[in-house]
């Protein structure tokens, strides 16, 4: 058998070596891209990918995940442990729409009498209203109630409206009532309106999911930076 270089021609050998190296590099990048998956939670509804294989999805009645759903020892208290868990609750009134999408580093799901609740860590979420993504939420910890459509986030919460103005809210604790399009923020609450720039500080306020209207019955202050 003749050597490769005599078959191909010596003048083409450097080119073939370059092509080979590029192919190896591209192959490695492809592998890394697949393995990374969706590790960064999105800031908008459009920046969402399907759940990664193996990360699991939440079924309203039972829940599935890396744990074996047929394992009777897990029935009634299901824990999904993965690098990043993605969960979505479909909107029962609007086909193809969702109530919320949540990314968490760890989630523990309890299913007492079919009332699904979950404890989440390192949470990022997209909350919707009337089928439209309204705000994003980030918090160290959160508890979600699948049936009652409530999320309780704590440990320092950051919310941002997904409307063009991009109003923001930070608080120690935020409770979102999805059915009522209402959030209640408590503890060192700072709201910044993205359109006017006014900054409102208070100990408690009530807002809609998109952070467009807010109110408070406790004392506070508003600062207009440009003044008079």
């Amino acid at each position, binding site marked *: 058998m003749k050597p490769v270089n005599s078959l191909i021609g010596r003048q083409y050998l450097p080119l073939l070596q370059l092509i080979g190296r590029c192919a190896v590099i591209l192959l490695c990048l492809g592998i890394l891209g697949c393995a990374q998956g969706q590790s960064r939670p999105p800031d908008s509804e459009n920046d969402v990918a399907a759940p990664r294989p193996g990360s699991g999805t939440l079924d309203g009645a039972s829940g599935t995940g890396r744990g074996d759903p047929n394992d009777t020892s897990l029935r009634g208290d299901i824990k999904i442990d993965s690098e990043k868990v993605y969960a979505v609750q479909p909107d029962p009134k609007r086909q193809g729409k969702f109530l919320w999408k949540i990314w968490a580093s760890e989630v523990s799901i309890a299913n007492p009498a079919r009332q699904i609740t979950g404890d989440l860590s390192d949470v990022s979420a997209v909350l919707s209203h009337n089928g439209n993504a309204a705000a994003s939420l980030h918090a160290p910890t959160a508890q979600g109630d699948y049936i009652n459509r409530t999320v309780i986030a704590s440990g320092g919460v950051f919310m941002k409206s997904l409307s063009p103005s991009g109003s923001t809210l930070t608080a120690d604790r935020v409770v979102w009532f999805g059915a009522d399009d209402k959030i209640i923020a408590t503890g060192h609450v700072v709201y910044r309106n993205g*359109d006017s720039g006014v900054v409102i500080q208070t100990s408690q306020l009530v807002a809609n999911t998109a952070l467009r209207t807010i109110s408070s019955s406790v004392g506070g202050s*508003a600062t207009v930076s440009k003044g008079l």
Partner: protein
Amino acid sequence: MVCSVVTFCFLATAAVAAPRLQVGPVTISYKRFVFGSNVLKASGGVHMSATHFDLQADTMTVMLNSSSGPGGISRAVAEGDTSTGHQIAGRFEQVDEGRTVKVLADHAVYSPLSGSSGFRQMNDASTIQGDLKVHSNPTGKVVFTGNVTLSFAAPAALAEPSITHMDSAVVFLGPGPDYPLVSGGPGVTMFTPLH
């Protein structure tokens, strides 16, 4: 003490030029509020304050400009509580000149002024009597109406603050030693000049 009925025209001027007045950001404190569509409605006792100026009222509605445009406050309406007789209290200072203007009234409306239009208003004979020399244009005005009581303190000229009762008064805000500049309708002034 001297008491007189005058067509009120009160001008604050400075013999020496003073540094430009910085109003700075405005802070509004409240007990209750509702905010939406760039309108802030505060109640339960409202205190609006800025550099050399503050206003206290029972309720206040503040309309804000978009920050992509001029920004700031486009209009503010303050109300006292007429049922209890609790009035709006305004205080304006010209620190460099040591002058302080205090106003009590049932209603107040703040609106910004553009430079040129404000200057024309300053020279409008219907609002201000006599010749005026102002070194800079006003940036805004506050119109006080309803049982207005104006107190003007100028230690360099008056032994104690002068008190004027009138139906309405306008306080012009702006940079420099000319402000605050007060204009008003008929009223009764009591003042005590320095001997």
